[in-house]
């Protein structure tokens, strides 16, 4: 084990965390409204708008079909435009969030669809506006599945960052490729994988704990 290992890992972990946190926030910012729109524009739902529903669905499907690495390459010009460069962790956030947002939208759509239609009808019967229904009924009622869904998205984004690392974004994935693979440094390879495993375990465990906490107070005594 060489002495540059710890500093390398620290830097890599820092970059990975930076990419994951920022990408999650941006993809939530894009994906949450998209997911909500997918649900409420469905036929028979509060904003019943079949054409919008179809268009949104198609857009999401197109982005979901593009393999991550190709999406990253396609988004490089956009990254250059927004961030000033196509290299590095910040630039990587652009394709990562655009890739993760449709995925997150589908997860959010799925969680919100689980909310019993009867509750939405009850809210409608009380004269609630669509915004009130979305913010005070749909989302709170779906909070546990939403938390688990976001947890899943964060973990997926983490694996996306490793792919981004392969093309110069930095982070643990980049370390694994540049040192572990190209320079045959087994110690780096092993360490980066170990850290990623611990990180993913931690995220999943936290997500589960939060979801459990949400439900525990409301259960039958």
């Amino acid at each position, binding site marked *: 084990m060489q002495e540059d290992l710890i500093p390398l890992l620290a830097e890599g972990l820092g970059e990975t965390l930076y990419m994951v946190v920022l990408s999650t926030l941006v993809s939530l910012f894009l994906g949450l409204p998209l997911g909500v729109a997918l649900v409420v524009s469905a036929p028979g739902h509060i904003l019943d708008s079949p054409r919008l529903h179809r268009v949104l669905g198609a857009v999401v499907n197109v982005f979901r079909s593009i393999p991550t690495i190709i999406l990253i390459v396609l988004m490089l010009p956009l990254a250059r435009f927004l961030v000033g460069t196509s290299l590095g962790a910040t630039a990587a956030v652009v394709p990562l969030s655009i890739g993760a947002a449709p995925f997150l939208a589908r997860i959010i759509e799925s969680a919100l669809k689980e909310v*019993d239609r*009867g*509750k939405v*009808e*009850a*809210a*409608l*019967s*009380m*004269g*609630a*506006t669509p915004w*009130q229904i979305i913010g*005070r*009924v749909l989302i*709170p*009622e779906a*909070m546990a599945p939403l938390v688990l869904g976001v947890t899943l998205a964060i973990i997926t984004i983490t694996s996306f960052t490793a792919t981004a690392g392969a093309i110069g974004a930095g982070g643990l994935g980049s370390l694994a490729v540049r040192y572990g693979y190209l320079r045959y440094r087994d110690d780096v390879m092993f360490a980066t994988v170990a850290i990623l495993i611990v990180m993913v375990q931690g995220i999943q465990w936290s997500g589960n704990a939060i979801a459990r906490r949400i439900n525990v*107070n*409301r*259960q*039958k*005594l």
Partner: protein
Amino acid sequence: MISIVNLNKSYATPSGTLAALRDINLTVNKGDIYGIIGFSGAGKSTLVRCLNRLEEPDSGSVFIEDREITRLSTKELRQARKKIGMIFQQFNLFDAKTVFKNVAFPLEVAGYPKERIRQRVLEILELVELSDKAESYPAQLSGGQKQRVGIARALANEPDVLLSDEATSSLDPKTTYAILDLLRDINRKLNLSIILITHEMDVVRHICNSVAVLENGRIIESGSVQSVFENPSQETTRLFTRGMGDGPFVERLARVAAPDNIPGLAALQNLAVSA
């Protein structure tokens, strides 16, 4: 006072157009407890849901306290709905909110200040006798308690009318009567009109003063409960009123009908036996 004039509603189904409501004409006086009874598929739920436009009628008008509900814009409809309470067979409570927050919801939606909301919620919870459950969650309540919360929530905004869509159909008999007694109590105290959808004649007999019998989307008989019971003019009505006695609905029905004049009765009986 509620009037329904020439109401029609059909649904498009894969096997053709289904006429759920045909030329419905009905008047409910202020303070009435009006029952609408019929077999499954008769159109009862559709009718009550047209009253607050959870279903949009194809033609006809609904008037509630001189407001033509069927002509209101989306925004006006939202306002009007605040004065129309509704309770459901599956309760439809918000599981993420406490009893207090459930009852407070319509008041928050209407934009009342916090202190006013607090007062009103506590007042209403006392009316339905659930003051001690204010901080409980719906999952921690029994069916009867849940429906009380539903009633409290529906009454929070002081509506002119309460719509009950088979609200006791998933409760056991004892709880059903307790809820009906509560509704009758509220009707007397607040002079609140109640429109009650049910498939159980005992429910109608217990608290309604007027009743309409719905079959295949049409009102085949209506009037005061007393007159309809004493002199049912239609066969379907007679099925509901005559010689039914006690016991599960299916058994009572079987005593007055034969499998060939009630489609599905044989299947129902098999279900009841194996349940």
